[in-house]
Every structure is written in structure tokens, then in C-alpha cells.
């Protein structure tokens, strides 16, 4: 049998796993692996920061459903991907990360660029491995991909010491994998499914609450069919945007802190909640003890720990969303629920999403509405984290699942731009637009080099309000308008307690994103007037390479509706009372 080095085994194994692209950055303890990749059939994207690599792998995975792969060196290389792993972990994204490690003989001696990668990444990965002998490497890689992509997906890290990379052994890539202690359960318990269906059939005011699980298991058609068959309105989480067609009359939009009025009201009035692949995040539930008090709660989730973790569940069904919903579809009664739908529709018309469309000012929501209109909701939109993220969630009408990519659970600023690059690599035929805040964008904008050098056409729309806008909004609403360290234009000459921003008198904003883009050879366009939004977006979409739009939006715009942190979903603030 043919003998190979650990590094060659890695390359061969990745090819066997049909990996199309790897994101990463080399370093001393990873050099044998990089040597093996050099000239191989693997497409390697050299990022400017390891964090960028982890988010690119994430964006690739979220947009394609395939596992994202990144490869970095030991020590700082490994610690730099921790945020990316944590982001993927909370949002159930399949990633496989490979890290170089110092030689097994010096582990524990505080060697150069040594870090306890396994210890550091344990809480932010689904599982991790330290490979101590090259003879275990192929099997470990197989297990890593298997664990990352099955059950509730998540990131898996494989730490490979440099002597293992160099070690030699016979290479056989296992055909299948069997882990006695890891057997995800896909089929829901038939008795529980029947119980759930009985409760739904008897209910008068049911609501679907769908999360990423629906996207991951591709259960969107099952949700659609059940909801239409039984007249059940559907609300989605941030990560399930696009999983239910927004133009269907039963769509309530997103629930929670910045969810629609009708979604939150429907949850609070429902007699049955059918939660599918959602985990009752506090941004969705508001004050837990007041959440859907009148409702029996059915929870379908592949992860048993998600059940009754936050909200007590009446009928749990542990299993894969699609498998379980298929069963439910055959059992559920066809039923019209006219009164309930009428009530819900009334909430919709009473309190639609709104902002001031008529004052001629450049509101950020307007930019997103235009993006949605021009792309027909068919583009992949990634976001950073903050106000622009919530406005994008509200106003970008993604037509299908996997078109709206955002760091939901961990709320990682700096995610959107690299994720957009990863998404574009996975979907070269789709338009990819990164909607960013001026704060978040600066956290990983070094990856612009990757776009340019590899000809990856990603559009960036910066909704520039000169603030860490979400922080500023909370400071305005809950901290007496004391804008403590949320202004990004602030210089040492500014008045200490300034809370009266004004583009005309504030210090010049840096960086000048237009000039910055130009320095990468990328078209940069500044928009400061509402009437210029459409032509700029058109120009951006016509351009066949990356473009940066720096849109100077209203600085003190707030996101509404809003349920303040810790308040009940009943307590929606629909607008600022000034």
C-alpha cells in the first residue's frame, strides 16, 4: 500500500471530501501542510487575517449548505479563528478548521507559537481533535466532516502537530464512519408527532415559529404546505429569513426585539406555538415568563438540549425538521382559520414596518428597500451586526433560504464582509451584496485585498452613520442620550459629552471609504443625498467587479419596532416618542 505523509493525507482526504475551497493563512507550524497544498487541485484562498478566513468558510457554508474549511497555523493563527468558530457554533454552521500545532515532543513546554488550541476552542466547537499520531489522521478527518455536517451542524477543529504533518503512514480514507457515542436522531418519535398534530388540529390560533433548523434541513416546502393546509401564520427568526415566502399572506415576518408588530402580537395571542429548528433565543422571546403565555408549545428540534432550555415545552419532538414535518403534513387536518387570519391581518395593516419616506432625508431603510427592489430579493445579502443588520432583516425581502446571511447568535461584527466573499466563491453566479455599518466594516475590511486579487465580485454598501449605531440607539433610549464612546468620528478636540452630531460641524470622518476603495483599485462611490441612491445602486450592480458604496445616512435613525431587552413581547415600542 502507498505510504504518504500526514500533509499529503490531509490534501487527499480533503479531495475525497470534495472540498472545493480552503481559506487560511500559513505559518511556521503549518508549513508542511501548505507545502502539500501547493500545486494540488485544492483551491486555497489566502486571507489577510485568520478571522477573515473563518468567516469566509462560514459564509461559504451558510450559502451552499456544504461544510466550510479553513487552515491556519498554531498559536495566534488558531486564536484568531476563535471568534469565527464561536460565530459558526451558535448559528449551527458546518465548519472544519485545521490548525498547525507545535511538535508533540514539545507540547506543554510553551514553545514558540504554542497555544492550547484544543482547550481554547473546546467551548466554541461541536467537537475538536488533537491528532497525536499520523496513523489516526485520515480517520480523524473523516470523523470531523461527519460530526460537522450531521445532527445539529457545527464547527469541528482538528489540531495537527508539525511532526504528525511530516509523519508517514499508509493511507486509506475510510468509506464510512461509525462513532458509538455519536448517533444523531433524525426520525421524530411517532407518538410525539401524533400528540403534536392532535393539539394543532384542535387549535384555533396556531403560529409557526421557524428557525435555522428549517433552512439546514431544507424543510421550507413542508412548512409552506402545512401552513397553507391548516391556515397557520408563520414567523421566522433572523437566520430563517427567506425560508418562508414573505409575500405569502400567512407570512408574519421576523419576531422578537426588532420583529414585526404582527409577529409578536401573534405569538402572544396564540394558543399553539409550533417551534421548528429554533432555540428560543432571548432576542426572540423577550421576557421569558411572559412569552406566549396562552400557548401550548410544540418544539421540533434535532438538538435535545434546545428543548426546554429556555421555555418549558409541552410537546417536544426530537428529530430532523424535514423528516418530522413530512410526517405531520400527512396527519394534519385541512382547516380554515378565518377569524385568526383576519385578526393577524388587522395587526399587519395597523402596524406595518415603517419609517419616514416623505421627509426627503436619506434614511438607511430606503437604501435597503432599493437593494431589495433592484435585486428582486434574489441576491445573497450578508450583513455585519448592528442597526443596519436589523434594517436589512426588516427591509430586504430575500426570496429563498440561504440568501440572507448574518451572525445571529454571537452577533459578530466583522462577519459580513468576509462571509460575503465566502458566499460569492460558493455561488459565483449570484449577486452578493454586503450591507455593512461603518463600524462593523472596519473590523475585517482588510479582506478587500482578497476580493481584488482573486476577482471576487462582492458589493459593499456601507450605511455610514458615523456611530456604532445600535450602541448609540440604546444610549439614546436607555442611558439618557449619553453617547459614551459610540461616535466613530470623535477626536480629542470634541466636547466631552457631545450628543449632537452634525455632518457639517463634526470632524472629518476617517477613513474616506471612497479613497480607501480606490487604493485597492476598486470603484468607490459616496452617496449623501437620497436622490443619488438609485443611480449609485444601479451603477454598482452594473459593475462587474467589487464596488464600495459609502452611503451617508441619517445619523440618529433608530430601529423600530423595538421590544427593549428584558421586556415582554407585549411591550412593543413602535416609534420614538419625542
Amino acid at each position: 500500500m502507498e505510504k504518504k505523509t500526514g500533509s499529503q493525507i490531509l490534501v487527499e482526504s480533503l479531495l475525497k471530501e470534495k472540498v472545493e475551497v480552503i481559506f487560511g493563512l500559513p505559518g511556521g507550524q503549518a508549513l508542511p501542510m501548505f507545502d502539500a497544498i501547493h500545486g494540488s487541485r485544492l483551491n486555497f484562498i489566502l486571507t489577510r487575517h485568520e478571522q477573515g478566513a473563518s468567516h469566509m468558510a462560514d459564509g461559504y457554508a451558510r450559502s451552499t449548505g456544504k461544510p466550510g474549511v479553513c487552515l491556519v497555523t498554531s498559536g495566534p493563527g488558531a486564536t484568531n479563528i476563535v471568534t469565527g468558530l464561536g460565530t459558526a457554533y451558535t448559528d449551527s454552521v458546518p465548519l472544519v478548521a485545521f490548525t498547525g500545532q507545535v511538535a508533540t515532543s514539545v507540547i506543554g513546554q510553551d514553545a514558540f507559537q504554542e497555544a492550547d488550541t484544543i482547550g481554547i476552542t473546546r467551548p466554541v466547537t461541536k467537537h475538536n481533535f488533537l491528532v497525536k499520531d499520523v496513523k489516526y489522521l485520515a480517520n480523524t478527518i473523516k470523523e470531523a466532516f461527519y460530526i460537522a455536517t450531521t445532527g445539529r451542524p457545527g464547527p469541528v477543529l482538528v489540531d495537527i502537530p508539525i511532526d504528525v504533518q511530516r509523519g508517514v503512514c499508509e493511507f486509506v480514507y475510510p468509506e464510512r464512519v461509525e462513532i458509538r457515542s455519536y448517533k444523531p436522531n433524525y426520525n421524530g418519535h411517532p407518538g410525539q408527532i401524533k400528540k403534536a398534530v392532535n393539539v394543532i388540529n384542535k387549535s384555533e390560533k396556531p403560529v409557526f415559529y421557524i428557525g435555522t433548523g428549517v433552512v439546514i434541513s431544507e424543510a421550507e416546502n413542508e412548512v409552506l404546505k402545512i401552513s397553507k393546509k391548516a391556515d397557520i401564520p408563520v414567523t421566522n427568526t433572523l437566520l430563517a429569513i427567506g425560508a418562508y415566502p414573505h409575500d405569502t399572506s400567512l407570512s408574519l415576518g421576523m419576531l422578537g426585539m426588532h420583529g414585526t408588530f404582527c409577529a409578536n402580537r401573534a405569538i402572544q395571542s396564540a394558543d399553539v406555538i409550533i417551534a421548528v429548528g429554533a432555540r428560543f433565543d432571548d432576542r426572540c422571546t423577550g421576557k421569558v415568563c411572559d412569552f406566549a403565555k396562552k400557548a401550548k408549545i410544540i418544539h421540533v428540534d434535532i438538538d435535545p438540549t434546545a428543548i426546554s432550555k429556555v421555555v418549558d415545552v409541552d410537546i417536544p419532538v426530537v428529530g430532523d425538521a424535514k423528516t418530522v414535518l413530512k410526517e405531520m403534513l400527512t396527519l394534519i387536518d385541512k382547516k380554515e382559520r378565518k377569524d385568526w387570519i383576519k385578526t393577524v391581518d388587522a395587526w399587519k395593516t395597523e402596524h406595518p414596518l415603517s419609517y419616514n419616506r416623505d421627509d426627503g432625508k436619506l434614511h438607511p431603510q430606503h437604501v435597503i428597500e432599493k437593494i431589495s427592489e433592484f435585486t428582486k430579493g434574489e441576491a445573497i445579502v450578508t450583513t455585519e451586526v448592528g442597526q443596519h443588520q436589523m434594517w436589512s432583516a426588516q427591509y430586504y425581502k430575500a426570496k429563498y433560504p440561504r440568501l440572507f446571511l448574518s451572525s445571529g447568535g454571537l452577533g459578530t461584527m466583522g462577519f459580513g464582509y468576509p462571509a460575503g466573499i465566502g458566499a460569492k466563491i460558493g455561488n459565483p453566479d449570484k449577486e452578493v451584496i454586503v450591507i455593512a455599518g461603518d463600524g462593523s466594516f472596519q473590523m475585517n475590511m482588510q479582506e478587500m485585498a482578497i476580493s481584488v486579487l482573486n476577482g471576487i465580485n462582492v458589493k459593499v454598501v456601507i450605511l455610514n452613520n458615523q456611530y456604532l449605531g445600535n450602541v448609540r440607539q440604546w444610549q439614546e433610549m436607555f442611558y439618557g442620550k449619553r453617547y459614551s464612546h459610540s461616535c466613530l468620528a470623535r477626536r480629542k478636540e470634541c466636547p466631552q459629552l457631545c450628543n449632537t452630531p452634525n455632518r457639517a460641524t463634526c470632524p472629518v470622518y476617517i477613513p474616506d471609504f471612497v479613497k480607501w476603495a480606490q487604493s485597492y483599485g476598486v470603484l468607490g462611490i459616496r452617496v449623501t443625498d437620497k436622490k443619488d441612491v438609485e443611480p449609485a445602486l444601479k451603477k454598482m450592480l452594473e459593475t462587474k467587479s467589487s464596488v464600495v458604496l459609502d452611503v451617508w445616512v441619517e445619523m440618529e435613525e433608530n430601529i423600530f419596532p423595538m421590544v427593549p431587552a428584558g421586556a415582554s413581547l407585549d411591550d412593543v415600542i413602535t416609534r420614538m416618542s419625542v
Partner: protein
Amino acid sequence: MRHTVSVLVENKFGVLARISTLFAARGFNIDSLNVSETEDPAISRMTIVVKGDYSILEQVTKQLNKLVDVIKVNDFNDVEYVERGIALIKINIKKSTRNEVHQLIEIFRSRIIDVSQDSIIVEITGDGDKIRAFIKMVMPYGIKETCKTGIVALGRGQR
């Protein structure tokens, strides 16, 4: 409320750290912990005593089950089981108290494993309650040091 949870895990490097990380990260309190190899050297058994209400116990068992290296989790809630721990207790001893202490040792079916001029070491085996009761009884004579193992437990009969 105390709950005893028995966990079969792969006998691999880092498994204990995985379990203790889980407890720390989720804010669960470990009362006692015992880890040892089973009759199959590839498998270890951990016996963990946790404090908390039933919802905590439910989360603990689910979270443990979710770990890739965990093979099986039994909680002994609602089932017949036996549990034992060992404690070594060094007790101050005087001529005047020697007889009383000896009587207690006999009542608790424990035994003396070391004797010196002014102290003895007693070995006591039993469930958590018995050990706590014994410690309470000998406390007035003055305890110099104690050392307790974690509880080990098995379900009774056919389980």
C-alpha cells in the same frame, strides 16, 4: 436537591476537561466527581453529583449526552440504586474521649486505620448521608483533617 448522574465516556485524553468545561460554562455546580476505568479499558465511568432542581438535572443530562465522547448517561432519579463513598477522617483523641469515639466508630461500622498519641484516622464507607452523619457526630471531638472520595453509584438489579 442532589442528583447522582452516571456517565459512560470514551477513555480518551481530554474527556474530563470536556465535561468540566461543560459544567463551568453552563453554570452547573458539581458536588462530587469520581472518574475511573470500567471493566472495558476503552470506557470510563464518571459519577457526578450535581445540585439543582429537575430542570437543571434535565439540562445536565442532555448536555452531557450531546458531547461526542459521551456514550451513555444515566441519572438515578426515580430508580433504585446504591451509592458509596469513602472518607478518611483524622480525629483528635484524648484519654477521656477515647471510649466514646470508639463506640461511634462501631455504630457506624467504620474502622481505625491509623493511631497516634493524640489522633486517629478513621476510614468510613457509605452513602453521602452516612458519611455526613458520622462527621457531624465526631465534630465535637475535633476534626484535624478529612479527605473524601466522590460518590460511586450503580443501579440495582437488571439495569
